[in-house]
């Protein structure tokens, strides 16, 4: 109707600008023949953790002139999977979690590290054995632990003193403590829970180890191991049954966000929790007034003392990287005593290296040693990393949910997981 010539010209200009910008977009990846080899480190961390990583990258870049690392924060693992699926990936080193190693290694998308480590003087024996076990597949090491996590019993000293409860050292004492520390009003409404569960899955699998159980015996899922069933039953009997699953759910729907100032452990809604070492860094910042303590998870017998679960944050080099040697140099730096200390301090995680157990570098973090010392325990276990691990841990989580909500018994729920495991991916 009324298309002015000015309008036409504007459109022409816009299309021209688009074509020009498309050219600019594609034509800028000239390689430099000399100078340091450039590699990309893509990491899942964000926020303050990403800042800490960038500082370590800067230190590495300044320390030598052969390799130059660019860090990029990619907080979603779909980015990793898409890049790994291509013939040429977009990063040369990245981080993930220990339980994925078996699955990824079996598919050939992450590179075996044995030769690369030997060339850079990294000895796998320096790391916590349970972590290296989880990161190996078919006799080869496919990832290195950049940080590890153990789980211990945290307690609110004020609440324990009020209830006249001593710090529990046996499972029976823990059961009594839970009973004494759980407060319920006349109508059944819970106002305080003896033992909270920031992550029911981690709490229960850890308790399974403490009862002498094993979730993967002989390289296959073993959910129905008698001690596993016993641990789940114990948890139900002592945490859920006394208050009722409905009241427990209602109580949990009103707890604050994890590790915020309203975290239920910080506000006294949970008197005790089983959780990882990052709490030691978080509490002084988020809940400075909390009077808290931490102790080893109570044991069923002296042979099972200091039982805990180890989870692992890992570093891996993708098979499609064109700069594996350079990436391995950076990897070696990250796991050196110097790099691992800087990293673990910045993130408030445990270093994976046995040589750092007892290191004075961590003296500034209150009670950190309770978690750190556990690395040297004989009773520290990690879930196996196999092609089926993701499915297995999902099924375990669902089984725990059924038991905690009172819709299934421990025996039946874990039996169902065992039944499902025949459908699991095998490679």
């Amino acid at each position, binding site marked *: 109707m009324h298309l002015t010539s000015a309008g036409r010209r504007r459109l022409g200009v816009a299309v021209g600008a688009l074509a020009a910008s498309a050219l600019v977009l594609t034509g800028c990846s000239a390689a430099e023949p000399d100078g340091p080899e450039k590699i990309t480190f893509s990491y899942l961390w964000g926020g303050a953790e990403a800042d800490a990583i960038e500082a370590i990258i800067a230190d590495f870049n300044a320390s030598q002139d052969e390799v130059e690392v660019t860090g990029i924060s990619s907080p979603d693992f779909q980015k990793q999977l898409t890049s790994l699926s291509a013939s040429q990936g977009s990063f040369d080193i990245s981080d993930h979690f220990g339980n994925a190693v078996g699955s990824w290694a079996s598919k050939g998308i992450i590179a075996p590290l044995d030769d690369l480590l030997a060339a850079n003087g990294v000895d796998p024996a320096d790391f916590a054995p349970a972590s290296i076990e989880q990161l190996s597949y078919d006799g080869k090491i496919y990832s290195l632990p950049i940080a590890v996590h153990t789980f211990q019993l945290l307690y609110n000293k004020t609440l324990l003193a009020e209830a006249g409860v001593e710090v529990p050292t046996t499972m029976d004492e823990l059961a009594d403590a839970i009973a004494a520390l759980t407060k319920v009003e006349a109508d059944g409404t819970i106002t305080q829970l003896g033992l909270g569960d920031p992550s029911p899955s981690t709490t229960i699998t850890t308790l399974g180890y403490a009862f002498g159980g094993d979730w993967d015996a002989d390289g296959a899922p073993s959910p129905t191991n008698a001690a596993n069933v016993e641990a789940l039953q114990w948890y139900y009997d002592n945490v859920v049954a006394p208050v009722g699953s409905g009241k427990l759910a209602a109580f949990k729907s009103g707890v604050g966000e994890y590790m915020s100032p309203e975290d239920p452990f910080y506000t006294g809604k949970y008197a005790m929790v089983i959780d990882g070492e990052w709490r030691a860094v978080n509490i002084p910042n988020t809940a400075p007034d909390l009077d808290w303590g931490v102790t080893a998870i109570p044991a069923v017998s002296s042979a099972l003392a200091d039982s805990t679960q180890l989870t692992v944050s890992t570093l891996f080099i993708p098979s499609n990287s064109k700069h594996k040697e350079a990436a391995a140099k950076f990897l070696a730096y990250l796991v050196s005593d110097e790099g691992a200390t800087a990293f673990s301090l910045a993130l408030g995680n445990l270093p994976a290296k046995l040589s750092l157990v007892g290191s004075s570098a961590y003296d500034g973090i209150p009670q950190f040693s309770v978690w750190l010392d556990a690395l040297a325990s004989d009773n520290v276990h990690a879930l196996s990393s196999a092609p089926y691990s993701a499915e297995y841990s999902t099924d375990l989580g669902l089984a725990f949910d059924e038991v905690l*909500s009172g819709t299934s018994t421990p025996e039946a729920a874990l039996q169902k997981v065992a039944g499902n495991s025949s459908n699991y991916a095998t490679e």
Partner: protein
Amino acid sequence: MTVRRRQALAGLAFAAPFLIGFGIFIAYPVAASGFYSFTDFNLFQAPDFVGVDNYTRMAGDERFWIALTNTLLLTVTGVPLSIVIAMAGAHLLNLPVRGQPLFRALVYLPSIVPVVVGGYLWRWMLNTEYGFINHFLSLVGIDGPGWLVEPEWTKPAIVLMSLWTVGGTMIIYLAALKDVPRDLYEAAAIDGANWWTRFRHITWPTLSPVTLFQVIVNLIAYLQIFTQPYLLAQTRLNNVGAGPGQSMLTYAMYLFQNAFSFLKMGYASAMAWVLFLITLAITIVILVSSRRWVHDGSR
């Protein structure tokens, strides 16, 4: 050149951008997913042909049925609510009141909020102790439910969070209301027609083709609903939860979990094609029925 031929060429020329896009970026991925659905494929290694195994396995997969049921329940409640609220809201926002542009912007605003932040915001709002929703309910004497921990209340929570972004559907209706012939409307008002007669005979004929569009795209969106339940059920970043009693596990979440957590892309592709067929079947029913209720300006 005959008229027919010229028309056909014109059609091709006008549709060219989409035809090119389809040829380069859509046809192959669609065909590939169809092929993968008959294979054992882990994303990285060559797929193994397994016939219809993936399809038959779905029949005995308990979680598949839970996810499908949850999704259908969300769809049959979410779609009608979206349409009704969007149409009523658009009429309200079309009233000539002072500040109208700002009001429209505020209703559409939730669609601009990044959905991840929206998810956190809603989890907080739905918290029984610290959240506003139960706080407001308690002001009128209602003891609100534990939205995210009671299996029977998680779906209303998902629908609530989804309806928050219904502003997009609303502004499509607002654009459609622009085409309602106002002179007819006012003439009818003079004739003393009541609001329902006016809506039925003047507004609805213009809104009906757009309503057909709204019903179909909302149906597709709800059958593929992922982000809202994923965020509400999530306990940590990068972790697929299912909510209490798996009440929040939707079809797309289970599909996502198979594809990217379990690396069973063959099974995920088969699930995608089953959902495709379900969507198609419902859409065909709607399209056939639409001949009775959609007014076509060209006829």
